[in-house]
């Protein structure tokens, strides 16, 4: 097996050790929810993740270790979600929903493409320092909640789970160019949220 940490965890899972399942769930639940969200939407996502976990437990012996445990789990989740989605997949929604703190739009630039309103200097320059502000955390949660299901999932899978863009395309069946657009717009909204907070000290 190519993934030694996976293999150690797997034998504990096969033995039915509760702590091993706790580790598994804590590590992968977030990514699985993001995949389910993107494919079936928020209303059915929790049920899909539940079903995916049951499928995982039933098929643990079948896990060959040819892919990482993460890839295996996310593929099962994507397949479970697609099975649930009996009707044809909705079009990828590239229309952008506006975010509570906006984005970095054309209004920030002069006609010649130079900054009109340049990025504001932030007071903090580490993530730890920024995140000590409870209000900023809430503010970010609001922005993340305002993203479309697909956009939020793409951002989550890329930034929090560290998936490659190609993996995201394959799991969610979205083209690379669409993933890039979704990701970029989501990042600008997060950027604008942080900037707004650093500039005004409030959400």
């Amino acid at each position: 097996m190519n993934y030694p940490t996976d293999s150690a965890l797997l034998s504990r899972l096969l033995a039915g050790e509760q702590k091993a399942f706790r580790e598994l769930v804590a590590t992968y639940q977030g990514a699985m929810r993001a995949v389910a969200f993107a494919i079936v939407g928020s209303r059915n996502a929790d049920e899909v993740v539940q079903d995916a976990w049951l499928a995982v437990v039933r098929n643990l012996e079948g896990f060959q270790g040819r892919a990482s445990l993460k890839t295996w789990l996310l593929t099962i989740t994507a397949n479970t979600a697609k099975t649930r989605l009996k009707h044809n997949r909705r079009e990828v929604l590239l229309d952008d929903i506006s975010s509570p703190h906006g984005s970095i739009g054309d209004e920030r630039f002069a006609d010649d493409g130079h900054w009109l309103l340049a990025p504001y200097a932030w007071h903090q320059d580490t993530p730890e320092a920024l995140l000590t502000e409870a209000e900023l955390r809430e503010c970010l949660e609001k922005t993340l909640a305002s993203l479309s299901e697909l956009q939020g999932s793409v951002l989550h899978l890329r930034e929090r789970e560290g998936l490659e863009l190609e993996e995201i395309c394959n799991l969610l069946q979205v083209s690379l160019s669409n993933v890039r657009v979704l990701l970029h717009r989501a990042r600008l909204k997060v950027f604008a949220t942080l900037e707004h907070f650093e500039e005004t000290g409030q959400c």
Partner: protein
Amino acid sequence: MLSCKELVARSSDFLDKQLSFRQRLAVRRHLLACKNCRRFIKQMRLSQAVLRQLPQGQNAELDSLAAKLAELRRQHS
């Protein structure tokens, strides 16, 4: 030369290494000359790091799910 607006439009592709060699060079050249865009890219990287470290709750929920799955596994074997 790339404008600031174009640089911002390509910033995610730059961070994700999706640009061609030539495009990447154009971004780097712009950054050398433009303090505002250097700040922008630095803050984009910081935003990414903030997202990575944003805490995620729901521990109790995960405990009960893990217990259920372990139980199921033991029944299954």
